[in-house]
């Protein structure tokens, strides 16, 4: 019976759809209502201890998320102690507190199904804690004690050291991470951003190093705390005040960032690995967020290789020629110092030369020729209309607000973002492409079976350097 009904439906529906076919509407001819969007409110408050607190209450689920941002990070790692910030972050997260041994701390937090992570990035440390609402009080007590009185228990610190040594030992397993490392070393010689830890350095990290970093950065006056979830402001403030009471902050010395080295001359770096596909990673110095051209560059990069399937790189390399699965370009907008411009792809070893040539041509093209109006409009519309997703979940709303303030973005950055993108012109795109893209002065890292492309690469107009991966283990 049911089967019969389906059969009838098939006939009917085919009938219907055929009458529609001739007059198929194009979906982009539909007319849409205007989007109602308000910037979500984030409560800001400076606590008595000096902590800068940002809160977005959200009572839909009985969860609370905290993210603490603290000055520090790999930019401050001395060159003979590369990796120290990472050593510190992992030791802090696993080394226990004054009153709780590492195991007691883990058992208690995991018993509450809480998740605690500590990580180190270029310009800061981040401590994340996710809690069930019912465990809030005890969770924040542990959080406070960890920040204030970490134990750095020797056994766990040694475990962290052993893990960092293992990372060094395994650094040539994955072609993508090999390429990233070699590119950093080539562009940032003698700078923390390009430095790579050695076993000797990791073995030299001491307990004193940990205590010193903790003392220097972990003071409530340097804390930027983002909180979202099922919590009231008054309740949160009371709990935090209790933890940070009588914790003095000493004046911090002015921030001194080691300056970046001059951009190196273009070259090709070959690293041999017995795999059927070459990882292609190209890069040169880019811009920081303080550069007023950042908006025009975002539009230019969308067209070049940032706009996914709407970008030229994806169209030319993947869609037209089937040479790669993944291909993109990216401007890492440096939060303080300029970041990198990067182009990344993978292709079978035999087509390595073809892909490198094609990618360089595409960079040249966006410098030499104006982009079309259609390309410009698409890039701008996409960046403007997807802006609303920056506010799609509570924790990212409050976290973004913290970051904008921590990195001294202009106060009206978010409010004016769409307008600034909208005002980018075709001439702007070409101007910034010429100013910030340097296809002849770029580092090109190739990790793969070099036998299959070395000859072709050596014919290109750039010096070729070979890295023996076995010597970097």
């Amino acid at each position, binding site marked *: 019976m049911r089967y019969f009904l389906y059969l009838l439906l098939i006939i009917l529906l085919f009938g219907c759809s055929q009458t529609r076919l001739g007059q198929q509407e194009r979906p982009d001819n539909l007319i849409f209502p205007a989007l109602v969007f308000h910037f979500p409110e984030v409560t800001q408050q400076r606590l008595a201890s000096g902590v800068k607190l940002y809160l977005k209450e959200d009572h839909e689920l009985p969860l609370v998320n905290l993210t603490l941002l603290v000055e520090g990070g790999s930019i401050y790692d001395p060159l003979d102690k590369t990796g120290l910030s990472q050593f510190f972050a992992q030791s802090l997260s696993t080394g226990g507190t004054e009153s709780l041994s590492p195991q007691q701390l883990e058992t208690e937090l995991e018993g509450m199904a809480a998740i605690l992570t500590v990580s180190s990035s270029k310009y800061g440390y981040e401590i994340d804690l996710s809690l069930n609402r019912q465990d809030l009080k005890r969770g924040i007590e542990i959080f406070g004690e960890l920040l204030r009185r970490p134990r750095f228990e020797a056994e766990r610190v040694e475990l962290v050291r*052993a893990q960092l040594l293992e990372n060094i030992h*395994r650094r040539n397993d994955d072609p993508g991470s090999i390429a990233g490392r070699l590119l950093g070393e080539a562009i940032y010689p003698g700078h923390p951003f390009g430095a790579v830890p050695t076993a000797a350095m990791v073995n030299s990290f001491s307990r004193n190093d940990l205590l010193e970093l903790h003392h220097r950065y972990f003071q409530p006056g340097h804390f930027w705390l983002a909180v979202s979830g099922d919590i009231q402001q008054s309740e949160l403030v009371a709990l935090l005040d209790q933890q940070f009471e009588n914790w003095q902050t000493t004046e911090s010395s002015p921030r001194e960032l080691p300056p970046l080295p001059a951009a190196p001359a273009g070259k090709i770096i070959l690293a041999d690995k017995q795999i059927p596909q070459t990882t292609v990673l190209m890069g040169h110095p880019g811009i920081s967020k303080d550069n007023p051209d950042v908006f025009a560059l975002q539009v230019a990069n969308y067209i070049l290789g940032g706009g996914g399937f709407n970008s030229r790189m994806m169209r030319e390399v993947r869609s037209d020629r089937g040479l790669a699965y993944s291909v993109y370009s990216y401007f890492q907008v440096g939060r303080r110092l300029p970041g990198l411009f990067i182009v990344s792809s993978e292709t079978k070893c035999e087509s390595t030369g073809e892909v490198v040539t094609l990618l360089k041509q595409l960079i040249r093209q966006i410098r030499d020729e104006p982009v079309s109006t259609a390309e410009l409009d698409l890039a701008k519309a996409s960046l403007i*209309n997807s802006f609303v997703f920056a506010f*799609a979940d509570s924790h990212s709303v409050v976290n973004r607000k913290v970051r904008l303030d921590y990195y001294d973005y202009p106060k009206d950055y978010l409010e004016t973002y769409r307008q600034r993108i909208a005002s980018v012109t075709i001439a702007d795109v070409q101007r910034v492409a010429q100013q910030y893209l340097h296809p002849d002065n770029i580092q090109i890292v190739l990790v793969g079976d070099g036998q299959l492309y070395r000859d072709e690469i050596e014919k290109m107009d750039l010096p070729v350097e070979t890295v023996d991966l076995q010597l970097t283990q």
Partner: protein
Amino acid sequence: MQRIIIIFLCLLFLLIYTIPASSSSHTIFEKVQEHRLINGATVLLVERHNSPTVAAYISFRVGGVNETSQERGVAHLLEHMLFKGTKTLGTKDYAAEKPLLEKIKTVGQQIDVLRNRHDADPEEIQQLQDQLKGLQKEHRKLVVKNEFSKIYGENGGVGYNAFTGKDSTTYLINLPANKLELWAAIESDRLENAVFREFYTERDVVHEERRRSYESSPDGLMYETLLATAYKVHPYRNPVIGWNSDIDNLDPDQIRIFFEKYYTPVNMVITLVGDFDSEATLQMVEHYFGKLAPGVPVPPVVDKEPEQKGERRVTINFDAEQQLMIAYHKPAMPHKDDYVFDILLQILSEGRSSRLYKTLVVEKQLVTDVGVFTAPGSRYDNLMILSMTPRYGCSCTDIEDAVYVELDRLKSELLTSAELDVARKQIMTSILRGLEGNGGLARMLSSYQTLGDWHYLVDYEKQLNLVTAEDVMSATKRYLRADNRTVVTLIRGEN
């Protein structure tokens, strides 16, 4: 970056993080509205007005597991082809394009036939390849490149993607709330009028995807080898992307047949979560998707994996440091023992206080990391897989011994009720975290509805609470046996 992907990681993610529901999540599940269109399509709607956005998922109850040996890789390449447009989108003139597409197919099929013959004339193949190139070039003049992506892009869509797993295939996008009708128009057009353009170029893209995810990646290579060793008969043994020779021989006609049969309303689950009015939205969904022909239900897989009669061991030589994976066959949901394994996974490897982390990483310091997960799918009996990263100088034999001591302990000592409670709380909280954000909720509803019925999530906590320490002991005795085990090691080979 947008990627049309699959890959087992997506599935692992689903399986590890989106297991089932909690009492505090019930308020959200009460908001789920379920509808069935007259053509058989299931529609799940959840209104959520936190931000003016919508997550839109369309899933089909078909994936790699439903392919015969002649079809391996079809579902995945089809996923790529469904991004190539329709009769109105992606083309300057479909009428002019159609005969050209036919010619391309004819030449492509001729090449494929010749390549499989030992006595083929290489010159003839070359000639045909040149001819194909010429036709492709001519065809490209009529193509509007990636037009779906363009239209979604200019309308503010993000995360436009798809993934093909063993059990199901999903197409997803997030849109500003005012653009929901755009999604309905594009997606229904794609199901009704899909045109498979640039087929042979895309086949090359899939080869690159395979090189990237499996052949150049120690993790991917190990996982693929593990499945092909642990399964002898059941199609879970095959990579969703296909083996190389499968990809070489995929054919546009074959893909079309698979598409027209199974990517149809009777196998389809539409899930929308976000800022919309349910009544109006349902009407809109009916208007666009209700016209599609019902299609044919995907037949169940009848292949049964015979009981494993002894340990299987494989070694892979690869240019990387050593790695180790151990797998045991186990039943899939909704079997009672599957809930037992959810508990077991927590006890073994979730967090630093878990048993394997404590023993292997902290005390014996044999490995730097250990993870336990279930894979490769959830519709048919699957595997519990332990994955370990050995410390330099530690032997895989010592690691295995230490693992087996821990597993044996579960066979002789009952878990305490405190341990059980913690495991339950962790699972329930991880589900809760999965509900933050429209995408998380949409993915969870969509995947469980595709596997059977999303109410599994509602009932889950009750079932989990029924698991006793005795159940855990009895399951470990039954499944965690040497006879039922597959061990894969990857070492730096001498080649």
